[in-house]
């Protein structure tokens, strides 16, 4: 067997962002990743490429580059029109082997989390799942730790190197991939010191999209790798692709989110209705904690938290949510947090900007009335 532990990692350079397209439309999360990838490429002193697979997709690919990429690695084939694990894995692995990027990022979507592990396993490299923060520069990373962790200054100082295979390893050129673990109770930073590319799936909605730059899009270099893909490479066959009949809740883009939790248990229907009314009054959307989804009160697209969606709205209102760490992981970066809970020692009050200790069934109707009154007085 190959001696895997002597891979030449210095032969790899550039950052690639896999851009996910569905029916020819590149997904928002890919633009977020391109903007984040720009920062990482600058820290590494290399170029950033958007990796786009599809059919007849050059125009959209160049547009994606407008969010921060120097160029596009464009893989076009009728066989790549719709996502398949088989086709996309083969083309990405072939292209990565040929062009040797140092970092490859995927959105942690249903597709990214199907594709990333398969590519990483075939390339014999590491993949870090569902990252919420990325760094290359050690000073920038340590500055992040100062605000985001309870680590001592000595321990933060110590993160400039790690023990890898029994030896001291300088991490200054490694991608530092930070993610929640154990349901968000802990954060961990992962490195992939011995193999390239370092690969990560990144949680949608966490990275900030830069403004679109038409000049950058126009100037994007286009690289067209040779595609060796035939029908024989497919072990799966797509019979149908359907959109959900019901419009799903767009929590990630919402400015105002009103979420309900276990506190609605005594009157689930009434509690959801109140939450929805308050959300409507603010022009926001309704979300829910894990228990509301696990109990079947709300559909899964409503879930905020470590296993649901990460939101950072202008205002997040938590109704009857205790604030388990798993929930906080998905909403603690909201600009303003308001909590209503009967239990004064609920952890949600530790992060709330404004708290009301009381029964949501009593407080929310009064609050809706007060908001209406304020609006009417304008």
């Amino acid at each position, binding site marked *: 067997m190959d001696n895997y532990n002597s891979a030449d990692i210095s032969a790899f350079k550039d950052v690639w962002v896999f851009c996910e397209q569905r029916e020819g439309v590149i997904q928002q999360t890919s633009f977020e990743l391109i903007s984040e990838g720009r920062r990482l490429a600058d820290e590494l002193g290399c170029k950033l490429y958007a990796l786009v697979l599809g059919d007849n997709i050059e125009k959209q690919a160049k547009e994606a580059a407008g969010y921060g990429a120097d160029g596009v690695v464009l893989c076009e084939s009728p066989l790549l029109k719709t996502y398949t694990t088989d086709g996309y894995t083969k083309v990405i692995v072939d292209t990565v082997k040929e062009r040797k990027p140092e970092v490859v990022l995927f959105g942690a979507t249903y597709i990214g989390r199907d594709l990333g*592990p398969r590519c990483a396993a075939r390339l014999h490299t590491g993949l870090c799942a569902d990252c919420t923060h990325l760094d290359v520069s050690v000073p920038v990373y340590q500055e992040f730790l100062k605000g985001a962790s309870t*680590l001592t200054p000595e321990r933060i100082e110590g993160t400039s190197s790690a023990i890898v295979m029994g030896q001291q390893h300088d991490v200054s050129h490694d991608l530092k991939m930070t993610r929640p*673990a154990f*349901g968000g*109770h802990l954060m961990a930073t992962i490195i992939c010191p011995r193999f390239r590319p370092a690969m990560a799936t990144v949680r949608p909605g966490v990275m900030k999209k830069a403004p679109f730059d038409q000049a950058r899009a126009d100037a994007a270099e286009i690289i067209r790798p040779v595609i060796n893909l035939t029908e024989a490479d497919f*072990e799966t066959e797509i019979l149908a692709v359907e959109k959900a009949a019901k419009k799903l809740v767009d929590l990630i883009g919402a400015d105002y989110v009103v979420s309900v939790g276990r506190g609605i248990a005594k009157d689930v229907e009434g509690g959801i209705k109140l939450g929805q009314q308050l959300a409507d009054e603010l022009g926001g959307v309704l979300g829910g904690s894990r228990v509301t989804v696990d109990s079947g009160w709300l559909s*899964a697209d409503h879930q905020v938290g470590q296993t649901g969606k990460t939101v950072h709205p202008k205002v997040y209102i938590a109704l009857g949510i205790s604030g388990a760490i798993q929930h906080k992981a998905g909403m603690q970066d909201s600009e303003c947090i308001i909590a209503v809970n009967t239990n004064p020692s609920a952890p949600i009050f530790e992060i709330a900007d404004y708290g009301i*200790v009381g029964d949501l069934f009593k407080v929310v109707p009064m609050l809706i009335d*007060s908001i209406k009154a304020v609006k009417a007085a304008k």
Partner: protein
Amino acid sequence: MKIIVCVKQVPDTSGKVAVKPDGTLDRASMLTIINPDDLNAVEAALKIKDQTGCEVVAVTMGPPPAEKMLREIIAMGADRAVLISGREFGGSDTFATSQIIAAGIHHMGLNDDDIIMCGRQAIDGDTAQVGPQIAEKLGIPQITYAGDIKVEGKDVIVKRMLEDGFMNIKMKTPCLITCIKELNEPRYMSTFGIFGSYQKPVDVYDYETLKDEPLIDKDTIGLQGSPTNILVSFTPPLKGAGVILEGADKNTANELADILEKKHII
């Protein structure tokens, strides 16, 4: 035909989680459970067994006490189980873990009409990586996020969920499927099953058992075979406490509405 269900014993992260002063998890103080999504994979396998009479084999990698979890899955209706356990396997990341489990499945024998089922992801790591990586190591097709599964001879038709809809995908066995919570309602252990669970075999595969498998190499298993390393783990600081608005009455509601107005929210 057999269905191999991959399961994991995990700390119950939905309850109180204890963190030690050095920032690592105090596993000893936590209860362990069968990973919730894995129960949906077990149920999916047992449903196919109900229809076809196929064999269901539960597989896990973990320390020796994980045998108890395998007995529970046998009590639900599985026919036998395999515990992959050894010091050499410790410290594995998802890459190395899938390497070892794939080797265990290869050792057991993967036939043309077999299916491997996994849960979507485990609640301790939440990576969702080991399932697809097992499929890759075994060179078989995968469908993740299964919301419905139909088996017709050697064809498997799966409704693969997406954020905004779904795809219907057909593949041939042998293949791997990862199952989501919405797929089914896992059954309970039956009284009969509990009584019988210690009569059925739980084989233990250790390093000695698997060392001649092509996938097992000191450079691809355990800590040494893991491409990723943990640089540091930490707990986030608490955000400063905010203002508690006293009362929970009409005045409190007005006060909050005024704050929202001053912040130009309404």
